[in-house]
């Protein structure tokens, strides 16, 4: 049996089954959906055990050169605590593991996040309007600074949005709408790209298995 062709046919039939939902819900779609969910869950369990648990924990606890490293029992126990969420009486133990994860994550990313997403962005907004780049850059800089200021005013709720504040907030919401529009355009492009990828698979990999070459 040619397993490559079998794989292509399986992929093609499952793709068509999933697309059949666009017409209406049907047993082929349900089958493909349930198969995907089940396969994904099974795959992730095995993948996590093989690529995360064994190399990162088991092989450190019991190294190949022999001996046991008891310190690695701690993450093992914390991992078991996480699983104990399924036992109502012991579920509270999982909070210890969670608090460790949250604490470590927050500590590591707090300053980095502030630097990358706040300070650097504020710094990037403080631009010399007339500095180099010709009229296009000048206009871009004006729009950027106006957009940031007006956008911030829109999210300032301690003063009623009337008068000059209201008009500024309106400019802010207009600029936000333009940003959402651009974002939506990109989203459309992404979804069509996925359709293109799957269509290329069907046209140029699946059809040739039936002797149809486009």
């Amino acid at each position, binding site marked *: 049996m040619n397993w490559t062709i079998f794989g292509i046919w399986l992929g093609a039939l499952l793709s068509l089954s999933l697309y059949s939902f666009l017409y209406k819900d049907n047993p082929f779609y349900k089958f493909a959906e349930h198969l995907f969910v089940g396969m994904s869950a099974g795959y992730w369990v095995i993948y996590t055990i093989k690529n995360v648990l064994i190399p990162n924990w088991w092989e450190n606890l019991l190294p190949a050169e022999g001996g046991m490293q008891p310190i690695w029992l701690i993450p093992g126990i914390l991992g078991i605590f996480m699983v104990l969420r399924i036992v109502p009486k012991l579920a509270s133990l999982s909070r210890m593991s969670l608090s460790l994860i949250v604490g470590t994550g927050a500590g590591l990313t707090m300053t*980095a996040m502030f630097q990358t997403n706040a300070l650097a962005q504020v710094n990037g907004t403080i631009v010399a309007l007339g500095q180099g780049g010709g009229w296009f850059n000048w206009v871009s800089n004006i729009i950027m600074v106006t957009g940031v200021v007006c956008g911030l005013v829109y999210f300032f709720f301690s003063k009623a949005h009337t008068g000059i504040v209201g008009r500024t907030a309106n400019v802010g919401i207009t600029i936000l709408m333009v940003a959402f529009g651009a974002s939506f355009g990109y989203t459309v492009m*992404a979804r*069509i790209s*996925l*359709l293109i990828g*799957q*269509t290329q698979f069907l046209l140029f990999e699946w059809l040739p298995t039936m002797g149809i070459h486009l």
Partner: protein
Amino acid sequence: MATFTEKLGNIDRRIIFTVIALSVVIPLAMRFNLPIPITPGPSTDMFDVVEALPAGSMVLLSFDYDPSTMPELQPMAFALTQHLMRKDIKIVSMALWPMGVSLGNEVLTSVSDSLGREEYVDWVNLGYKTGGGVLIVRMGSNIKSVFPEDYDGNSVDDMPIMDHVNKLGDFDMIISLSAGDPGVPAWIMMAGDRYDIPIGGGCTAVSAPQFYPYLGTGQLIGLLGGLKGAADYETLVRIGMENPPPGTAIPGMAAQSVAHLVIMLFIILGNISYLAEKKKKGGVK
């Protein structure tokens, strides 16, 4: 009886799906090509930075995606890897997403074979490790402690390509092809801003708008956004190349453009119907 504008506003969704499907299938099946004009922007910035790297430079290429975003990110990976390997730039690859490893290996092996490059000398795939940002922080001080072995289980100490690489600061550039988190933001936050390493990115079109602020501040030196970014890069890499290898992004863009035109047409029709109906009811003066 429903008027024409009413019917226009209530087109059966299955008709819309069929028209969209045809707008994608026909250009692909007919191998319809549209020109892809390259204008200065994030894609050309990325190309220029890679182009300026001297032969022998070290680049870390991170495959932070999975098969669900392959149509957008895999063409980028091919085009970037071709560019890097043609310029004789050494590639150390890895993945912050588990399934990115095998997708990356497919790209590296294929391009390396076509250009006669050697594994462990010109490129290596270190594989996947969990941890995201924490992993990047650890790599900042010692890569070999994080990745003592490569994807195939070979010791990195025995690989010529890893002779001069000990920490992230030893790389001339980091490129993340990212479908979400962890991905480009984690590399900017934990590597670019910390160690002042140029970061380039490739991402799905959905996430591209959120990365534009990083371009404005120079935290990202270039960005390939979605299939358009991949097609831009494919086009740039092919300039001056005899018998360029086949790509999937450029043919895909023709279908993309036709589909976008069809969607725009439906949006216009929907708005005409909406305004006409509203006017009929006295809502629009």
